[in-house]
Every structure is written in C-alpha cells, then in structure tokens.
C-alpha cells in the first residue's frame, strides 16, 4: 500500500515537471510583459529596462526557467510583479480564502447531494424521484455563472441577506466575530456552488443505489430476514456511499476550477480572482505558480481519492 502511494508520488514528479515547463513557456508566450501598459508618466523606458533586467526578463527562456525552478525548490515562487510581494505569501492569503470556500462548498455539496441521491434512488421511478431528476436536469442546463449572478442579485442585493463582496466584513472584530463574518461571506457562494456540485453526486448516487437495490447481496440480506430499512442502512447506503465519498478528492479539483466564477461574481479575493488578475497584468510568476499549484492539487486529489478508495473498498486494497 505504502509502496503504491510512493510510486504514485514518484510518477507525479515528471508529470509536474512537464507541466511546469509547459506552463512556463505558455506564460512567457503571452504578448506583453509585466511592465507594458503600466503607463505612468514617471516610469521612463530606462526605468522599465532597469526593472526588466532586475527581474531577469531579458534572459533566454531556459535560463529564466532554470532560475525559477531552482528557486521553486527552495520554496520560493518568486515575487509578483503586480503585487510586489512574494508569490508564496500572496497564495497563502488568497489560498486560504479559496480553501475555506471550497471546503464549505464541499460540505454543503455532500450534505445536500448525498441525501438527495439516496432519496431519489430509494424512490426510483416515483414522484419524488422525478422531482429530484428535474432538479438535476435543470441545474445542469443553466450555466453556473448565471445562477451566481441571479443568486447574488436576489439574496445579496434585493433581499440583502448576505454580504456581496469580500471574504470578511471590515468591521468584524475579535476571533469569534471574524469567524462569523467569514462564514457569512461564504454561505451564499457556497450554497450556489453546492447547488451545482450536487448534480453529479445525485445522479451517480441515484444509479448506485438503484444498482445496489437490485444486487444479489441485497437479496441475500433480505433472505436473512433483515427488515428493508436495515437493508438500506447496512447494505445499500454503505455500499453506494463509500465510492462516492472516496471520490471527494477529485471533486476538490472541480471546486477549485469553479471558484474562478464564484470569486469573480462575489469579488471574493481568492486564487481564481488572483489568476484572472495575473492574466491581465502578465504577472508571470503568479500565473505559473497558480497553474502549477492547481496541477499539484489535481494530482493530490486523485491520489487522495485512490488512497481513500482503497481504504474504503476491500477489493481495491493492495496487500
């Protein structure tokens, strides 16, 4: 088991390496540089030249890449041109925000999705099932951002129930106050995100439950005289829930991807917004760091899922 994990991690390294080269080259290929467009009457071309030199932007790409990767190994992702701040610090700040949001969304997603999927599967073909399926179809068909914009308009502005921008209210004070305020800021985006995230879970779980319901081991359980509700509890739920729970690792990556939309609509200063901003300002260091980080998280997610699955499912367990 440990060996498998270790091997997976070793395989990850070349993948990350290729990704890093790719990302680096792509970022460099973007037209412009961090200093174009910052038309400042006081910023002379000499000064721009000076800054470009200072940041090694005239070096050939492999040289730049090499410097970058060497620093990377020292945990230094460089300095953001736009924020003149170490990228690591920047990502720490924004990453924490995105992480909270993602975590909360995930909790909600599973909190809503699991019961709904089970419910639909249990009442397959009945009225309740039809309702749930209509919900999934409709949600699937609406673009995510439309839901976000409509959501913020109704609940944020018209009803004024939730804050509409930022991650914490400036007035929040004290530890309790700030935690509450942070929570307040992620409830609406989290809920809307969850509304979306559930669709897959509900559909998958529903068919899992239906499959399990007709499986032979359920028949065996019934032949033991186990009442139906216990059959659901001990056999059907467990067996159809576990694989889904194990796939949570994958869904983190999905959440992070969707966070770009959420953060944009809710002006929520997370990594997604940071990325969009970095694209506009050609903030290479931030772009490369973020893409690499997301790639790493994707890897981590798959790895976690695999590990979780092998723990949860004895059949996959490697002895």
């Amino acid at each position, binding site marked *: 088991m440990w060996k498998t994990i270790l091997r997976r991690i070793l395989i990850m390294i070349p993948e990350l390496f290729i990704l890093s080269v790719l990302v680096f080259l792509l970022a460099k290929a973007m037209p412009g540089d961090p200093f174009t467009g910052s038309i400042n009457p006081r910023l002379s071309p000499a000064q721009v030249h000076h800054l470009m030199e200072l940041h090694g932007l005239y070096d050939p790409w492999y040289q730049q890449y090499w410097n970058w990767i060497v620093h990377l190994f020292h945990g230094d992702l460089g300095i953001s041109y736009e924020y003149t701040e170490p990228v690591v610090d920047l990502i720490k*700040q924004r990453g924490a925000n995105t992480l909270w949001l993602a975590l909360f969304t995930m909790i909600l997603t599973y909190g809503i999705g699991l019961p709904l999927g089970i419910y639909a599967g249990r009442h397959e073909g009945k009225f309740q099932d039809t309702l749930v399926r209509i919900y999934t179809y409709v949600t699937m068909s609406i673009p995510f951002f439309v839901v976000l914009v409509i959501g913020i308009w109704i609940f*944020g502005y018209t009803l004024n129930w939730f804050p509409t*921008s930022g991650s914490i209210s400036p007035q929040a004070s004290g530890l309790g106050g700030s935690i509450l305020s942070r929570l307040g800021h992620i409830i609406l985006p989290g809920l809307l995100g969850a509304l979306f995230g559930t669709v897959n879970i509900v559909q998958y779980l529903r068919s899992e439950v239906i499959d399990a319901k007709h499986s032979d081991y359920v028949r065996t359980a019934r032949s033991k005289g186990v009442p139906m509700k216990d059959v659901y509890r001990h056999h059907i739920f467990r067996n159809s829930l576990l694989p889904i729970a194990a796939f949570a690792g994958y869904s983190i990556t999905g959440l992070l991807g969707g966070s770009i939309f959420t953060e944009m609509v809710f002006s929520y200063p997370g990594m997604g917004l940071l990325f969009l901003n970095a694209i506009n300002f050609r903030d290479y260091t931030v772009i490369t760091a973020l893409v690499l980080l997301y790639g790493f998280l994707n890897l981590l997610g798959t790895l976690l899922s695999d590990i979780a699955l092998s723990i949860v499912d004895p059949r996959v367990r490697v002895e």
Partner: protein
Amino acid sequence: ACSNNSSKQSGTEKSVSLPATYNASGKATAAGNNSTLKIAEVNDAPFTGISSPTLASNAEDSDVFAPGGTQWGQINTLFNVGKNYKIINGGMANQKLDRKAKTATITLRKDARWSNGAKVTAKDVEYPYEIIGNKKTTSQQYSSDYAAIKGMAAYHAGKAKTISGITYPDGQNGRTVVIHFTKMSPAMQYEGNSFIWASVEPYEYFKNVPISKLASSPQVRKHPIFTGPYKLDKVVQGESTSWSPNKYFYGKQPQVKHITIQVVSSNNIVSAFSSKKYDFAAGGPDIVMPSSQYPKVKALKSYTVTGVPQMGYSYFGFNVGHMNTKTGLNVMDKNAKMSNKNLRKAMLYAVDMDAVSKKFGHGMTWRANTLIPPTFKNVYNAKAPGFKYNMKKAKSLLNKAGYKKQGKWRTDPNGKKLTIHFGGMSGSAATEAEYQYYMQQWRKAGLNVKMTTGKPMEMNSFYSTIQKPSQNKIDVWTGAWSTSSEPTPTQIYGVDAPYNMGHFVTKKNTQLLNSLNSNKAWNAKYRAQQFKKWQSYMNSQAAYGPEQFSMSWTPVNHRVKGYNVNADNNNFWSDLSLTAANPK
C-alpha cells in the same frame, strides 16, 4: 468652508453639470458620527495593499489608504494645495523655492507626528528620494527629472550611498530639509511635479527593512503608519481597510469615528448603492465609476450624484514616425501613411463625438476640444473649437489633399490604395461599440479603415504593438492619458517621450513645450498663455486629436455632510460628518 463650485465648462457641449460637493440637510448627529462611514472602492481586482505612496503604483492603493492623508490621493502629504494645484503654506510642511540658489527648502511644522506618536523628521522627508532612487527599488517613480537633484544620479547609479544634494541644516531629526538642484523649474510650484516628492516616509519605522524588500514588509502592508487625520485599524489584504481618528494628527480632528473602505467590483457597484451598502465611492477626483451606470445611479432616491472633471482625457493618436533607438528621440517620417495633416483632420471631423458621448457617456463624458483636461482651469484652453462633427468638411479636406475616390475607397494622393489600420484596446461593450462607430464614420468618408487584428486588441498586445520603436500595424488608435496634478505634457508629446507613440515631433512643438517650464514660465500668466498656444498648435497639427473628457463622479448618500472634492479642500476627511447611523 465649501464653495459650491460646479464644474460647468464652456467650449464644448456638456450636458450634465454636477456639484463637486454634497452637504446633507440636517445636523450631524452623535449617532451618525459614531457609526461607520462606508466607502466603496470600485475595482474588479483586489487591491495590491502597498500603503507607501512612494512604492505604490496604482490608484487603488492610494484610494484605500487615503484617510492616512488629508485629501484623496495625498497620503502622508507634505503640502497644502490651493487653486490650480499650487502648493501653499499651512500643510504639514511649507516649501520655499530659491531660484537663485537653486534650492527648495522644506520646513516641517512642529506638531507633525506619525500615527504611532513618533515625530516626523527631516530624514522622513528625504527618505522617499532614497527609496525612489535606490538601485534595487521596486518603486516605479524614478524619472530623469530627479537627476536635477544634485547627487541623485550618482546615488541612482549606485555610486554614492547618500544623495549629496539633500541636506539637513538642523540635523536628520530636525525640521528642515534643503534640496539643491542643478536647474529650477516652474513646475516645482505645483503639486504633482516630478522634481520634488510631496510626501514623507517613516524612516525610523522602515530603517530595518532593505529598500528592495520594503514593498512586501509588514511595515508597509499590515501595520503602516500615517500622518493624516486617520490611523489604520486593520487591513484585510486585497479587500478592505478600516480607520479611526489619529489622535496625533496635527490638523483639525476628524468627526467621523469609523471609516471602512471596501473593494466592490464595477459590475456590482450600482446594486450595492441601490441596497445602500455604501455612502460614496472612493477616489475623489479619480473615481472610476463607469459612465454607463450613471442613469441608474441618478435614479437612486437617497443619493445625490457629485462629480468633478477627470484629470485626464482620451485621444486619437496617429502614427507619423518612429523612434530612433540610438538617440532615444522620436523622428517624424515624411512619407508615413498618416503624415498628411488633412487626412488626420478629416478623420477627426468625421466622427460625431458629441453624439457618441451623449449616447454612451450619458452626460458623464463629452467631446474633448484640446489635449489639456478642463480641470486645470488656468491653463485649459476652453475656447479651442476642437473637431466638431462635420462630415462635409472632412470630405472636402480629403478631396483637397488629393485623397480621391477610386471605386469604393479613396486612394492616397499618389493614387495608391489606402488601407488604414485602427487599433483599440478591448474594453466594455460600449467601448467596442464606439470603435465600430468610428470605423463606420471613416468608411462613410470614403476611407478604407480596418481594425488591426480584426477586433479590439487585448491591452497587453495593444501596448506591446504600439510601444515598439517602429511599427506599421496600427496607423490610428485611441488611447487615454491621465495627468498628475501638474499637467505639463512633455512626457507624452515631447521629442524624447517614450509615450509619444505617434512619434510626432516638430520644432515648434519642442519649443512650445520647453517654454512651459522655462524661466519665463515662473510668470503664471505667461505659462498659461504658452499652454494655450500649445493646445491650439496641437489641434492645428492634429497628430493627436482630442477625443473625450469625462467626469469622476459618485453618488453621495444623504446622510453625509461636508463632502467636498475640490482641489483646494485640504481638509476632506476632517470636514466629513454624518447625520444618521446608517446610510439613508
């Protein structure tokens, strides 16, 4: 204390006139003043969070840290400003220029203190120059003008540890600083000039941080100190700042007990105002409220819209030359596609900027008539006619200049096919609709105009194309230019100006520009006259055509008293008060 001075301009048709001030009816109340003044910073990205004006490079930062200064955009500022942005006495320091000795003497007032209680010293006045000129600095402020300070060039090159031209007659911890120049400029009398840095940096507080690391230090990011009426309570990185009165402030104590400034995206700002989340938008004379939102905001019952003309304008640029990379000087090409003055003029006459402004600007923008924004009342040439829409004239100009129609399009005077490439940065739907309109009009005049890449260009691609020393991809473009409070246009239209991207150079132009800061120009009248002359000259050459002026505007909630963004109000924060505990 506030003059109700509206910014109505003559010369062009401007449909809306807005007050620069707002005063709520009723009295300020204790409940109101003890509550929180909520200010929205309209920006689509989180702010950078560099509180030091020397290191900051964008407007958002100076907005969210504004309560640390006496006015919008004036953090830790040394001087008070009078009409026309002229430096006057009465601020944290007074300035005395000695033309003969070529010195500027800056004297701090006795009670000037930082918000942590420390005294503001002469070293604090000098330290910004060290930061700006440092070899490893992240500051983007250094320009050739600073070389006028004795010893600055040596320091900037890393040859000297200190700047020899800055001296302290009563010691580093004293109150006086004398700056020695190699030459003096009339611009030094105005705020925002590029010779004398107008704010202080807390040397004692910063001294343990290397200048190269200053921008990311907690002293700048997390716990900065200020000299203004408010002290920073908390900064939520990228999102918001909160403030309370600074008891060490030398001037009039502010009345409002709490201020928060929070970033709001431009998409959401109107909704935010309609649900009364904010009292007004941050930025004072530089607010970036989109003009397309004006009609909706105007309709809000509990807000009154205030505004002042922006310190900037948009323009049409024509590519008439290139930059000699060896000498660093711009050169006009006689044979450039756009070198014909009449062609350029015709193109400017062919677009109806009045109509465009009316439809897209909702009265928040209006046709520009010169290349100096009207906010500089003393030097702005209000009488310049500009290029009022006249398609007939456009056509006749073209005909006269020999651009004859052959088939569908006009050819150049030599009978060769003429295709003009228009470049514009992508932006809102409205900007892009404007581009479409321009092209339509030019085509109506018979010119075959195409967009350079077939569509609006992304900002970075646009600038990397146009900033090349020599390029033929973009023949005409629209750009925007914002000025500091000292409007000398050398940086954009000068012979060695890198931002003279159309490479327009004439003897007369150079002469006029030089005259703006010549010795004679210490005479304000002469200076204003030369400014106006220059504006007329530029219009006559039409190498750069004025496009639009616009307003900086914001709704102000009806609980706010004493809102006044006029340039000569040096007590913006202290004058504010509130009549109710929540936005009305």
